[in-house]
């Protein structure tokens, strides 16, 4: 197995303790940092696909994401200034009145793993805060809005409307998700896309950003 394959395998199987050493040895072998990063991004794509197919479980996706994050830390000094694939910024949050964060965090992790810089606004985020964050980050092309309760779907509607009313639709695409959300509801409230899980969210975010 090549060093690059070892790194990919370690991300896929969530080898948190070994990843730093493996990434370092790949660097020592002369593999470009960018190439290592892209290999890890590719692996997270595979992880996302497996999750969509119910082949792996939530903690496995979580550990893979955390493993990649740790690997990226090793690469960071080398990546500064390098020509790195980046989709820009991705702003994410759970709508006002809703405190659920597991799904939102998984999406953030997968989107980050796909090559975005993630700005996580947290939970119980007022619509205005989304608007301000988008304005403050003109290089943000996609915003993710999460709602986990039927009772907070209304707050999602309000949030999407606030973004549209602020005239920000020319800058960002809006991606929504959460247990009660449907593609029909997403369309009805004026969102650009709905995805059912974190793996497909990362895939869709890339499409929306390019």
């Amino acid at each position: 197995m090549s060093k690059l394959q070892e790194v990919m395998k370690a991300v896929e199987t969530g080898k948190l303790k070994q990843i730093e050493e493996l990434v370092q040895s790949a660097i020592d072998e002369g593999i470009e940092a960018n190439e290592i990063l892209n290999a890890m991004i590719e692996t997270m794509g595979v992880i996302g696909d497996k999750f969509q197919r119910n082949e792996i479980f939530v903690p496995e996706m979580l550990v893979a994401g955390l493993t990649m994050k740790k690997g990226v830390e090793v690469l960071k000094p080398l990546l500064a200034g390098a020509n790195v694939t980046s989709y820009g910024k991705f702003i994410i949050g759970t709508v006002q009145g809703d405190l659920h964060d597991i799904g939102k965090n998984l999406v953030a992790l997968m989107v980050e793993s796909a090559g975005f810089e993630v700005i996580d606004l947290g939970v119980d985020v007022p619509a205005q805060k989304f608007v301000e964050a988008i304005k403050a980050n003109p290089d943000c092309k996609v915003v993710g809005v999460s709602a986990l309760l039927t009772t907070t779907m209304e707050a999602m509607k309000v949030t999407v409307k606030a973004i549209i009313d602020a005239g920000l639709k020319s800058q960002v695409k809006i991606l929504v998700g959460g247990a009660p959300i449907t593609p029909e509801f997403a369309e009805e409230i004026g969102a650009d896309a709905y995805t059912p899980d974190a793996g497909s969210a990362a895939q869709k975010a890339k499409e929306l950003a390019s």
Partner: protein
Amino acid sequence: MIIIGEKINGSIPSVGKAIANRDADLIRNLAKIQAEANADYIDCCASVNVDELETIKWLIDLIQETTDVPICIDSPDPQVCADAMQFCKKAGIVNSVSLEGNKIDTIFPAIAGTGWGCVALLCDDSGIPKTSARRIEIFKEIMAKAEEFDIAPERLYIDPLVETLGTNGKSFLTFAETTKVIKELYPNVHITSGLSNISFGLPVRKMINMSFMVLAMQAGMDSAIVDPTNRDMMGIIYATDALLGNDDFCMEYIGAYRDNIFGPPPKD
């Protein structure tokens, strides 16, 4: 959780018959299915009145032909335990000592200076003590003996013993209290249990056995002598370990599920 697989025991009628008929395939299969079910040790008890050492050697050889999982030598005769160690390719566990008769004086010298572990029951010549206090006294005497032979606490599997719940409503509470005190005194000592005694004489015994498992693990039990092919029990063990914070990211739980240790049985 350290699982000691209990299926190779001559006191189970089908196994007793297989031993009497020298049915090697049946024994090999019991070793195989327990190894596949993630047993950490395979208990080996001949339960015969004559030629026990020869019988136990026959069993050990069959287990070792089948799997690398180490053996837990189980005999009421301490000399048989000590003598059977030589048949084993790697260090296992001796089951068991207590303060009964000459057990400890026979077995501790035999395992001194080896990698072998040992189950120690907290009883003496007068049987199972009623109180936790008396069990702790026995525990302390056993630990003093262990120190004399330089046997480290992590090599010992203390069985605090359970009485039948149907005749003693405080049976589990005594077990739990004893376990907690022992873990405070010696955090590295293992606590184990044969556990099925708890449910004797009650209907749907598995309800009692599984509930006992969960509560006992919370009290500090980290080993059990059980049937690892019991999928419900194994699922409960992995789930409880995860709930108790012993399983980072539930990886053991997920891994055991993938290895088909519990969950819906595979479709043919």
